[in-house]
């Protein structure tokens, strides 16, 4: 039997807006993936530790506070330091267009703003998962 894609959905930092994270978590689960949701208020260390423990293929980060340039990048840096850059990292939230290229350069493979159909995220993961 083929191994299911394993995804960690997480909320870095202090932001409490968890509507999007929860909706995406459910949509990925309904699309047949194994989803682990860390809940709120995670540091980069906590997220990377959970990614290791849960042996995930994908990390999904959600942030609506505007702190993505710092907090998303903290996670990809730490993953790289641990030699885990084969994990696909995606992010979503209130993210202005001008930040998208910078985030991609920093290792966020996919950035999904408001209005993204869940199907697009599912397809992106299936197509780009590295492991």
């Amino acid at each position, binding site marked *: 039997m083929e191994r299911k894609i394993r995804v960690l959905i997480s909320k870095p930092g*202090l932001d409490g807006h968890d509507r999007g994270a*929860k909706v995406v978590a459910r*949509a990925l689960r309904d699309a047949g993936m194994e989803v682990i949701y860390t809940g709120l208020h995670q540091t980069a260390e906590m997220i990377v530790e959970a990614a290791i423990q849960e042996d995930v293929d994908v990390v999904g980060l959600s942030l609506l*506070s505007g702190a993505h340039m710092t907090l998303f990048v903290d996670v990809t840096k730490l993953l790289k330091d641990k030699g885990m850059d084969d994990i696909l990292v995606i992010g979503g939230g209130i993210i202005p267009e001008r930040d998208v290229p910078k985030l991609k350069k920093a290792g966020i493979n996919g950035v999904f703003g408001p*209005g993204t*159909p869940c199907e697009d995220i599912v397809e992106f993961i299936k197509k780009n998962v590295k492991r």
Partner: protein
Amino acid sequence: MFKEKYIDEIKKKKKDWEKNIYAKYLKNHPERKKEFTNLSNTKIKPLYSPDDISHLDYLKDIGFPAEFPFLRGVHATMYRGRFWTFRMFSGFGSAEETNKRYKYLLDHGETGLSVAFDYPTLYGHDTDHPLSRGEFGKCGVAISSLKDMEILFKDIPIDKVTTSMTINGPAAVVWGFYIANAENRGISKDVIGGTIQNDILKEYIAQKSWIFPPEPSMRLIVDTFEYGFKHVPKWNTISISGYHIREAGSTAVQELAFTVGDGVEYVKWAMKRGLDIDKFTPRLSFFFNAHNDFFEEIAKYRAARRIWAKELKKLGAKKSRSMFMRFHTQTAGCSLTAQQPEINIARVTLQGLAAVLGGTQSLHTNSMDEALALPSEKAARIALRTQQIIAEESGVTDTVDPLGGSYYIEWLTDKMEEETYKYWDRVEKLGGVLPAIEKGFYQREIANAAYKYQKDIDEKKRIFVGVNEYKMDEPIEIPILEMDEKGEERQINRLKKLRKNRNNQKYERTLKALRKAAEGDENLMPYILDCVHAYATLGETCQVLRDVFGEYEEPAIY
């Protein structure tokens, strides 16, 4: 409202109409959808007529403005007397930048202020706390001490303009900053007016910026109620909020039921303390969302007023002022699109209009760029102008509750009230509001509604203009707010200087006294004010309370 015989006649005639006119027409002209439902998934009929509201008694259930049950409005003249307060929620970066924005908005006809704080402030952390990393000024202004509050309101007449502050976990401390700043400027506590959100129940339910567990949080809130009516009589010591419940994905009915239910819960806690219901309830205020379904929103505000009045009467309120619900409204942030951002102006206009037709006391209209970032100056000005157009040009302000008596509106108002009581029965069965929170009841209800809404959009069961229909394949181009890069450094330096220069003996003494009081059961507001006056920072003051009360943790469910 109508004579029984006449209703029978209408019913008979309606049946004929349904058979001979409507059904016949349908044969050749089918409707756009098999079933029409509003955002709470209530089925909407093709036509409403007197028989749909024949069970209502005008004098008992609808009545006159400024009289029980306040369905038609809380003031006799409503907007014929004065418009609602144009109150734009704003805050970003440093206190200096936000102070400038406030002056800009006041210059352009804003009539009340509303402070958005950044995440560290919302969690009671100073800007230099490790968990504040990356968050400084991002989704609101950073306020770590009385010094920052002084700058935030510099040259703003806080004896004349009222200020609403969206702050919950550390509300008592931030309110302390505001009071202390007024006192230092020689403005009496009797004079200042405004609101602290201070609604922790909806934080556990939806917005998720809490500090302490429920019991000590409720104690702090009742402390502010008591201190407020005794010493700061023009202050609304709570703004019981449905806004965030709705933004987290609830339906309109859930927003209504959970919010007014929270309101009743606060009243019960304050009464348990022994506070006189007619003394503290006049300072309770509410805050609702204005989402897309126009009539549903209007019905929601009207139902909220009637339910609140009835419940307060049941709880023993005698004065009319204790029973009437005043509320602020903000248009729905979650309804804005990042795609074709300019079309958000049209959405906000409709939503703002619904709030006004629902009788709001105060309104924030969102800016078109808010699905992308905090609003730019121009976007905020256009949003403010939108309110001014509704107020000055549309004519809807010339009479009180212009939609009162509409068969559809009255039917829907009543229906939403009925649905609210059904939710309350479910909460009661779980043991009440706090047990329902602990059991994840509200959180699950909201997550389910949010997922259904997303699926409806993904499957095109609902059209979202610019998102799943009428799309354009072009890049999103809109100017994005630029913040002062030096703001964070400047504020951290200010904190360092403050810690070095303050009277440390006084500072230590006041924090020690607060700790002791927190361990007992005295009202904490006077102690908090002493700490604030001694220039204890937000983080330091909240840390004392964290030590005594502990912190809340939520189980992660989706």
